[in-house]
């Protein structure tokens, strides 16, 4: 090849893939894998055990051109590959009211992924829909929240892949050996200490969204360790869903691909186990958390038009918690549209357990296969939306041109019933 600084060593099989001996689709994907390997200075490629494909959401011709070209060239995925959200809700086709191009191209893009052999998960939280890679295994995941989760909460190893590279990896079964696949790159170069903050603050969902903003802003793309947070994954203090929400927000506010919560996440039994030499140390205050939380609300108006939960996709545990909050209380107010985005897998399990019907009976609507902030689901006259999701609150004002109010799960339900924003500020004073 022409690049003289190429220090990349390929195995005979990988070279054969690049040379077209495994067909033109594999060759094209290998050129992309090798291009990335060179940009990152990787010395070799490694085999992966699974992939999560993010190119399922229609962003324009480029993604469709690439995916359909792979189909045309006879491409097939080599490893288990789940699919991220698409632009359509295939189970509730009337919910999304996009233009004709979005609907038809969005559908073609989803079909092309199936033609390549991907599993139709259509979820940004595949890790709660049956795809949980083993600790230490190498995978190629795309979708920023899923990357943060698979690395941090499951301890599998994925660099921050995007669409195109995810399918290229799935088709070749290879990724460059670089970034977060390396031991050294997984050490924390930043320590965020939350031990001086009143632990009652962390009983609020909104605090975990705020922690995500802090983590994203302070870490950027660096690996951070968080100390002084309450509880562990087994005692309900730090739940998997809170780590999911925090990671998703941090990957939106910054480029976080891996974080450690000391005493909680699997690579970080102690700070010593994961700290890099000369790590930066920052002590955080309640004021920092409050300030971060406040960036996720763009209005202080009481007026409310909709509530949107499930970014990333709602889990069965979240449906259970929601069903408990709703109980047999009053229905949501007439003027409020209450949406939950989730996977079809979680929806089916929550239905079997009876949680789903509690929400539907109260007047809620479920969105599957896609998400309310990436595709037109909300009514066009919706202005103010409440959510407990930091990621939704981060992106929705730009994507949808609406205002957001961040609140806890119970505040979202209380507000939906009252038909206006209801928030309890007592913990934050």
């Amino acid at each position, binding site marked *: 090849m*022409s*690049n*003289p*600084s190429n220090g990349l060593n390929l195995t005979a099989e990988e070279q054969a893939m690049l040379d077209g001996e495994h067909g033109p689709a594999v060759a*094209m994907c290998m*050129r*992309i894998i090798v*291009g*990335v390997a060179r*940009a*990152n200075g990787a010395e070799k490629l490694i085999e992966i055990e699974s992939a999560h494909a*993010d*190119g399922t*959401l229609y*962003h*324009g*011709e*480029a*993604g469709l*051109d*690439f995916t359909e*070209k792979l189909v045309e060239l006879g491409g097939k995925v080599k490893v288990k590959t789940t699919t991220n959200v698409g632009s359509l809700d295939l189970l509730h086709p009337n919910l999304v009211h996009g233009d004709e191009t979005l609907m038809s191209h969005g559908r073609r893009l989803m079909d092309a992924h199936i033609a390549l052999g991907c599993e139709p998960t259509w979820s940004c939280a595949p890790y709660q829909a049956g795809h949980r890679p083993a600790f230490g295994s190498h995978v190629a995941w*795309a*979708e*920023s929240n899923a*990357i943060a989760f698979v690395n941090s909460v499951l301890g599998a190893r994925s*660099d*921050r*892949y*995007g*669409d*195109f*590279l*995810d399918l290229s990896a799935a088709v070749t079964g290879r990724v460059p050996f670089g*970034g977060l696949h390396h031991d050294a790159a997984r050490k924390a170069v930043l320590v965020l200490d939350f031990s001086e903050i009143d632990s009652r603050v962390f009983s609020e969902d909104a605090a975990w969204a705020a922690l995500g903003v802090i983590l994203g802003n302070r870490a*950027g*793309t660096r690996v951070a360790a968080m100390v002084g947070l309450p509880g562990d994954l087994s005692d309900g203090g730090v739940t998997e869903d809170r780590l999911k929400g925090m990671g998703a927000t941090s*990957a*939106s*506010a*910054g*480029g976080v691909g891996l974080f450690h919560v000391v005493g909680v996440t699997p690579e970080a039994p102690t700070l010593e186990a994961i700290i890099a030499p000369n790590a930066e140390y920052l002590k955080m205050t309640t004021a920092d958390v409050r300030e971060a939380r406040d*960036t996720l609300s*763009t209005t202080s108006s009481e007026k409310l038009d909709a509530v949107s939960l499930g970014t990333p996709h709602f889990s069965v545990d979240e449906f259970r918690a929601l069903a408990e909050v709703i109980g047999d209380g009053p229905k949501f107010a007439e003027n409020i549209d209450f949406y939950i985005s989730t996977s079809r897998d979680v929806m089916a399990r929550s239905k079997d357990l009876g949680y789903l019907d509690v929400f539907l009976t109260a007047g809620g609507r479920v969105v599957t296969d896609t998400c309310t902030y990436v595709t037109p689901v909300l009514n066009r006259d919706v202005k103010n939306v409440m959510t407990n999701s930091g990621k939704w609150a*981060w*992106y929705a*004002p*730009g*994507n949808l041109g609406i205002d957001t109010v961040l609140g806890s799960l119970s505040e979202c339900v209380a507000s939906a019933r009252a038909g206006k924003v209801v928030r309890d500020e007592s913990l934050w004073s």
Partner: protein
Amino acid sequence: MVVIMTKVLTGKISHPGVAEGEVLLLTEPVSFWGGVDHHGEIIDVHHAQHKAKMTNKILVMPSGRGSSSATAVLAELIRTGDGPLAIVMLQCDTILVIGALVSAEIYGISLPIVELEQAEYDQLTDGMRVSVDARSDQEIATISF
């Protein structure tokens, strides 16, 4: 107009290509997905350069940010001609390199991406005219102005 270029910065080629244009210097990273619209305008309300347009500019920013769907947005901007002419970063973002690789593969358009050390990066200022040379047969990229 004759532009006399006197200074040459050198950096690492993250994706090959050549470009010449005006620098749009971002004081913080931008996420292409959710942060940039289909016309190349920064729509992230949290961003310091909110409403700046990167079309036909040499985009200079510290690093990438946010969603991995940035690749598709960048590829689409390259396809439609609404994207930047080159990207210069302190910390190269793989997600953007992939967007450039795919655009070269399916559209034959090669967007240069260059990684600079801090001292070199600090010499770039907003609005200056630069020439980026990161051809694939070279060991290093040069940025002249």
